[in-house]
């Protein structure tokens, strides 16, 4: 069983929104039709997006950290949005675990969006169907693209490689290793939805220096100074060093 997913490294994300614009560009240009916008150049623009980058402030001034948090459909292994769909338009693919919406079957009742605790689904106000991240299903299997390009648009766009893409059921994949070795976690684990997308936490690298590392162990008198210069007649390591 394959379960494709994204792993998003919050330690690296700089909140540039490149994944948002790249996602919008790719998915508004595809065969499935545009991701519609309303009043895009007016005072209150709104539109359909698969991916959003949010920003949170953790801690209290001055000890605060800004965390940029990209959020898209998590492609849950037990997706609560799928069984509630009355038409079968929402489904989870057996072959790769991607949760998709059949835009030709969706009646736009919005019930699936009520059943998603993550707010990952957005209705297209013009086409009147529910839309969500497809993991760029029209791209990752496209053999006319170079193999390096067969990745979701957001992954390709990320300038800091904060987004990894792969099969989380394959223990040797990059994403599985990243989750395993860097403390990857799922969102809202309390609902048992088993999101496939994982997040890697902020990690701090602390340099720990012990007292004895600051002093030369061969300096019993604790006096720092230059080592005595060897005499000119002393043999050298080669002809280049010292004199």
């Amino acid at each position, binding site marked *: 069983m394959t379960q494709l997913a994204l792993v998003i490294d919050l330690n690296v994300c700089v909140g540039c*929104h490149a994944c948002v614009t790249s996602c919008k560009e790719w998915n508004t240009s595809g065969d499935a039709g545009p991701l519609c916008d309303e*009043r895009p150049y007016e*005072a*209150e*623009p*709104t*539109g*359909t*997006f698969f991916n*959003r*980058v*949010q*920003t*949170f*402030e*953790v*801690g209290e001034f001055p000890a605060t950290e*800004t*965390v940029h*948090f990209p*959020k898209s459909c998590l492609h849950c292994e037990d997706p*609560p949005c*799928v*069984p*509630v*769909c*009355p*038409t*079968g*338009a929402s489904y989870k693919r057996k072959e790769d675990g991607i949760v998709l919406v059949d835009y030709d*079957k*969706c*009646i*736009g*009742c*919005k*019930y699936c*969006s*009520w*059943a*998603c*605790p*993550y*707010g990952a689904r*957005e*209705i297209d*106000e013009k*086409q*009147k*169907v529910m839309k969500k991240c497809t993991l760029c299903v029209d791209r990752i299997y496209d053999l006319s693209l170079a193999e390096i390009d067969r990745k979701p648009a957001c992954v390709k766009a990320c300038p800091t490689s904060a987004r990894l893409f792969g099969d989380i059921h394959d223990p040797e994949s990059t994403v599985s290793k990243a989750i395993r070795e860097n403390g990857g*976690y*799922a*969102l*809202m*684990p*309390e*609902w048992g939805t088993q999101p496939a997308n994982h*997040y890697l*936490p*902020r990690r701090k690298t602390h340099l720990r220096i012990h007292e004895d590392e600051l002093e030369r162990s061969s300096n019993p008198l604790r006096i720092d100074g230059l080592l005595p210069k060897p005499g000119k007649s002393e043999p050298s390591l080669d002809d280049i060093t010292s004199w």
Partner: protein
Amino acid sequence: MNPAFSVIFLTTLIGAGQGLFLALFTGQSYALFNLLPKQEGGFYAAGSFISLILLAAGLGASFFHLGHPERAWRAASQWRTSWLSREVIVLPAFMGAVFCYGLAHWMGWQSVLAVLPGGTVIDLTVVLGILGTLLAFLLFVCTGMIYACLRFLREWHSPLTVVNFILLGGASGFILAALFASLSAPELAPFFAVWAIILMLLGLVSRSAALIRNHRLRPKSTLQTAIGIKHPRIVQKSMGFMGGSFNTREFSHGAASLRSIKPAFLLLAFGAPLILFAVSFSNPILLGLAFVLHYCGLLAERWFFFAEANHPQNLYYQTLG
């Protein structure tokens, strides 16, 4: 949640329609055992017709909720997993049963199918009535479970949701039945009125229980579990856009205060009709007023039901920016 008026009208109108049918058949069952005076077929046929009008109006209202009403027929396909799909099947089935029940009374199809030991005659209308009653309860369960099955919306995720749909729908139907009887069969009006009072009192108890339960609920999801950062103080600085989105429109009601709605619906749906019933059981004007007030109360109750539910996705959409 942002209450959708299409769904508010759907649930309250079909609730009243189901309740009215249940009232009619309760009346017929009592008459069957000679506990109430028997009525002409026209009484039940006219009542079934009113019930059908309410059900059809509710069904019509539901179409306004859909983005693609022309594809609504597809909604019958996923009955194995979706309560919404089950409702889509049971509602027309119930309407069919009500139609047949009314038609059988209207046409006088009362051929004897069986005779109970006590001499009670079971005819076609009784069989259709029992079928309709089962479907009415099934429809209440489907409608309630649409909301009660969503475990993230903890205000709804309770058996009380289904119980309230049954009791409130039943109460509105029996009030309507009392009004209908006061105009066409006055000797039955007190019977329906007493049942309406019982259902309203039970509904008041179960709705209050739900209000108390929801008042005590503590959210299971927090900002900490939502973004997976274990720090007691996290503030959202940006939700990623400035102009709002589906997520900011669909899941918040935008009303400044819910406090005024709660006493209003309790007063309109329970208090006012009970007072009017205390004055008279058979005055058509007072019963009509009681039904109108009760129905307005139910609209407010259903609005509050939706608005009260706090969706965990709102954790991600707290700060515009």
